[in-house]
């Protein structure tokens, strides 16, 4: 039985439609999963940022008890730091934590400046070790925060780009927020 020309065309049309539908569905699934994965990466990186902050908070009692033996460090700074540590631990929301952290950072910065201004402090091993640990913690925070922002950028760019933005709309994805450092230089 020979197929009529019309039938051949309709079969081709059906095949093409099916292929297009399958390709679209596959694309939707891949895009959706990609967005989910990137969103998860942002979350897990935020946990990593929290992690290194916790490390800094844990360092504070030791820092305060060690450096309070030296009069070069201002007593008021040390009191503030202890106070802010308690506030941080009692903070319930991320926003509160970030606020306290920013104040804490500026207080800790004065500790490091004091240390750098007094060479005789630098010869005391206990103080030096603590300052190295503190600097290391600061640097870890900077690093993890930078990666967090990179992941946020990846996700946001993907989410807003056409045509993935449709999937993001249907999938209820929300734009993620960058974590700006208060000490960061202004954008160019």
């Amino acid at each position, binding site marked *: 039985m020979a197929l009529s020309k019309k039938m051949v065309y309709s079969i081709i049309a059906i095949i093409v439609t099916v292929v297009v539908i399958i390709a679209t569905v596959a694309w939707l699934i891949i895009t959706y999963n990609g967005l989910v994965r990137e969103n998860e990466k942002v979350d897990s990186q935020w946990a*990593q940022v929290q992690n*290194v902050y916790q490390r800094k908070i844990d360092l504070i009692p030791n820092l305060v008890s060690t450096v309070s033996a030296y009069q070069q460090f201002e007593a008021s700074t040390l009191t503030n730091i202890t106070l802010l540590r308690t506030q941080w631990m009692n903070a319930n929301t991320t926003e509160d934590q970030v606020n306290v952290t920013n104040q804490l950072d500026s207080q800790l910065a004065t500790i490091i400046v004091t240390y750098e201004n007094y060479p005789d402090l630098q010869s005391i*091993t206990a103080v*030096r*070790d*603590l300052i*190295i*640990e503190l*600097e*290391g913690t600061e*640097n*870890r*925070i*900077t*690093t*993890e925060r*930078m990666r967090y922002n990179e992941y946020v950028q990846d996700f946001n760019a993907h989410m807003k780009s056409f045509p993935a933005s449709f999937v993001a709309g249907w999938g209820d994805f929300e734009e993620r927020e960058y974590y700006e450092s208060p000490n960061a230089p202004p954008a160019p």
Partner: protein
Amino acid sequence: MKHILSPTLAIIVLVLSQGSAIADYPNLEYYVTDQVDVLTSSEEYEIEGICVDVYELTGAEVAVLIVNSTLPDGIDLFAVETFERNGLGQEGKDDGLLLLVSVEENAWRIEVGYGLEGILPDAKVGNIAATNLEPYLAVGDYYTGIYETTYALGVEIVDNYDGTPQESESPYPIPWIPLKTWQLALVIGAIFGLAVLTKGRIFLLWMLFSRNWGGGGKSWGGGRSGGGGAKGRW
């Protein structure tokens, strides 16, 4: 056919080399990378010997990088980015370590991979550098400072890190080409033969490969660091 081939090849070369041209941070070709030439090649070889030992005993990848300047990034960011781009340490274990010396800034930084943070806490790294690195750098003796520091860090890793011993890539005549002598001879023969047959056009292809192999002296494991370690000035 022949007249189509050449332009096509040229386009392929262009496209591929574009892709690999994102190199703002140094490619670490082997354990010691000295961009300032403060070390002689035999001195580099001595330091590399320590790194090879550490790698063979524990699998940890220790690299040394000497640059003129880390600006505008600053030494902290420069170290983290160079570490990550090159992927020091095995992937997942993150057992890499980078000793970075910036000559113009009089600054050093030792960047410790996540996996080595436990055995090399910041204070310990700082003290190792204060004893072994800074005094020598202060008098311009880069070799002794870097050698002693690499050695001290290497001993810490070998003594305390429970890694997986690895086979070093160096048994080959050319360390960054994983071929035994007779295989190498075969390849060189083949390249020579092709060069004669294609009247030299094969070197276009060679350009393409050397682009991609340029950074592949040692194939690093793909590890990362999280900003741990210590830094200082002299």
